[in-house]
């Protein structure tokens, strides 16, 4: 074979080269995700322009031009025509009011104790790995509300004032927001379960009543419910019986969210296979033991994300109580605008920005938590 020498056998392995620069690393990523075609490039540029034109003024207002310290409005006024940014000094000055409302200053420790207790009980409840969930739930849902009630409103035994009475008219700010949202959701959960079971009941009258209740509350806006509870409820009661204004609102909010909760729970009940019911009945369990031991634990666990979403909706909707003359966080901020000490052109913007920030942090973290639980519950059978 004369031309055998033309063939070459490589005895040394060639060095591995990195992927071409144009398809890997930052440039490759940009080519794939930002500039893959002419249309995409235009979209990218327009998107960046939009983002810049929205973000730049916000950062300028909220951070760069902001006034962080000051005694009164003069600190937040524009000097010789310069830019004016957010007046955080005003928020700092008003912070106690935004958190506690007009709660007496010497009694504020009681609110703090309630906040701390709530956090102490809620955090282990929310972490799936922490044991003693049953005890924890009992403490959070039964013991804590009683303790919080006496701590917040006051405690009088006989003639002795152990904790001075604080009228609910003095409550305000985040305290009212949290009281309404947490009470509303805690009280509406058992009601919602009851109506969900009623809606799936085989007894026609019970089913009918549940359907009417649920569809009625879901069909009307919360505003009309609040008007109803503040204007109409006193008319329904016998003469001489009066209700606290906050309590009236709580009744309305609870009934309203119970209807939504019932629909969420119904979703969970529908997701439980029929075999579970049949199995429970085969074991000789009656209706309530079957529900309590077999069905509800599974159904409620399934709908934790739905319950959290209902809570987020309720938390946002608590702002509506300002329309019936109560001061939740937004109402407290709104009412602080009338104070001449801090009256500047940027006061409103700063207040709203602060309110938006607080609500956003609460709602966003809750929605993240709901997604986290959803992923945890879906392990195994998620495609």
């Amino acid at each position: 074979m004369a031309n055998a020498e033309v063939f070459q056998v490589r005895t040394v392995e060639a060095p591995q080269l990195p992927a071409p620069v144009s398809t890997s690393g930052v440039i490759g990523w940009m080519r794939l995700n930002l500039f893959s075609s002419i249309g995409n490039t235009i979209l990218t540029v327009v998107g960046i322009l939009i983002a810049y034109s929205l973000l730049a003024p916000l950062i300028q207002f909220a951070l760069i031009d902001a006034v962080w310290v000051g005694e009164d409005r003069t600190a937040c006024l524009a000097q010789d025509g310069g830019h004016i940014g957010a007046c955080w000094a005003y928020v700092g000055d008003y912070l106690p009011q935004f958190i506690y409302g007009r709660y007496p200053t010497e009694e504020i420790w009681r609110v703090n104790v309630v906040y701390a207790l709530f956090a102490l009980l809620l955090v282990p409840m929310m972490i799936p790995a922490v044991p003693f969930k049953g005890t924890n739930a009992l403490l959070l849902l039964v013991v804590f509300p009683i303790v919080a009630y006496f701590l917040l409103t006051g405690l009088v035994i006989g003639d002795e004032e152990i904790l001075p009475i604080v009228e609910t008219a003095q409550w305000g700010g985040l305290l009212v927001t949290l009281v309404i949202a947490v009470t509303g959701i805690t009280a509406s959960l058992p009601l919602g379960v009851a109506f969900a079971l009623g809606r799936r009941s085989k007894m026609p009258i019970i089913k009918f009543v549940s359907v009417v209740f649920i569809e009625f509350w879901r069909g009307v806006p919360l505003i009309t419910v609040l008007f109803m509870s503040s204007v109409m409820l006193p008319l329904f009661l016998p003469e001489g019986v009066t209700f606290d204004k906050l309590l009236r609102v709580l009744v309305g909010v609870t009934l309203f969210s119970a209807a939504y909760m019932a629909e969420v729970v119904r979703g969970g009940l529908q997701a439980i296979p029929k075999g579970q019911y049949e199995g429970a009945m085969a074991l000789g369990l009656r209706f309530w033991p079957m529900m309590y031991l077999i069905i509800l634990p599974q159904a409620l666990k399934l709908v934790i994300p739905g319950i959290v979403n209902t809570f987020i909706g309720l938390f946002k909707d608590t702002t509506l109580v300002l329309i019936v003359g109560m001061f939740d966080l937004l109402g407290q901020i709104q009412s602080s605008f009338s104070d001449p000490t801090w009256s500047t052109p940027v006061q409103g913007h700063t207040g709203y920005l602060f309110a938006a920030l607080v609500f956003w942090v609460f709602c966003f973290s809750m929605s993240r938590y709901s997604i986290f639980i959803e992923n945890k519950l879906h392990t195994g059978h998620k495609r």
Partner: protein
Amino acid sequence: MSSETQDAAVKPARASLMNDPQVRGLFYQVLLVLVLVFLGWQIVSNTMANLERQNIASGFGFMENTAGFGIIQALVDYSETSSYGQALLVGFFNTLLVAVIGIFLATIIGFVVGIARLSNNWVISKIAYCYIELVRNIPLLLQIFFWYFAVLRAVPGKRDKWSFLFDTFHLNIAGLRGPKPVFEPGSGAIGYAVIAAIIGMVVLSRWARKRQEATGRQFPVFWSSLGLLIGLPMLAYLLTGMPMHFDLPIFNETGPVFSRGFELGTGFNVIPEFLALTLALAIYTASFIAEIVRAGIQAVSHGQTEAASALGIRPGHTLRLVVIPQAMRVIIPPLTSQYLNLTKNSSLAVAIAFPDLVSVGGTVLNQTGQAIEIIGIWMAVYLSLSLLTSSFMNWYNQRMALVER
């Protein structure tokens, strides 16, 4: 209980009457009815007593009385001498207007953002993500306040304006002003032309579909429909001797200070309360619709898109002809509840005094003290709106549903 003892021989498991599910069910239901009747009776008798003590006459007689307050935006005839009933009707139409325009805008924004959220373009998808997460985690009331107090109060005052779109639209503290179409006698032909164009569009699209199914040839339905919709009224307008013109708003820049600004009654004015409410509602609801649209599109299996591109269908057509029609089945039920939410949330108008049903009703309530009647009207109206919308959407959903064997 002689029958009971006789039965016991056949069914020995029967111990007591309370263990019979049917008897027990009947007992519980009778109990429930009794409790409800008792509660209802208590409420009615207490209310009657309370109303009598406060000297409030119940009933809807007050609807005939003169209202005596002005309303800043009325779609039907209204003046201060009109009746309370007329005022409530004005409020109802304003609620409908906000709901319809809000739903229209929210659907468009929601679909655009939802599709943008799934874009391959990183910047676009992240902007959509930020929009959704920002907007839906902030209370709607706060957003309405933001648009009303922070944005629409920051625009120029009455004696000044911002103009855009080639000087046809102007924004100042009194609202958005634009050209107003004025119809003169004989302009009815234009309306008929619009109706004829819509009928023509329906006929055309049916014919085009039939022809495509029979021969496979396509017909440019979209462009010819657009041509019909613009062309026919235009033709009618020209043939009848141009009986319509646009009344431009007149702005006085010079002259005495108090007469500067827009002349009263010129052009078309949208009040800032309406702008703020509709914008806030549309933007807030759109963030929820966007998530629904995203979930719906993701629910369509990827094989469908792959099959479409294997058939050589272009990406735009794939989205429009393959993905969206299948995604709609997942999207429609939650979309309905968002529409209902928007309609119910329009009652937040009361916070910025836009005269919707709740806002006008609140004024009437304060003047007459007829709390039960007013709240009854509110609830009845919103309930029937909810039922109407959901029954319409159920009908639409059934039409779109997958026809299975």
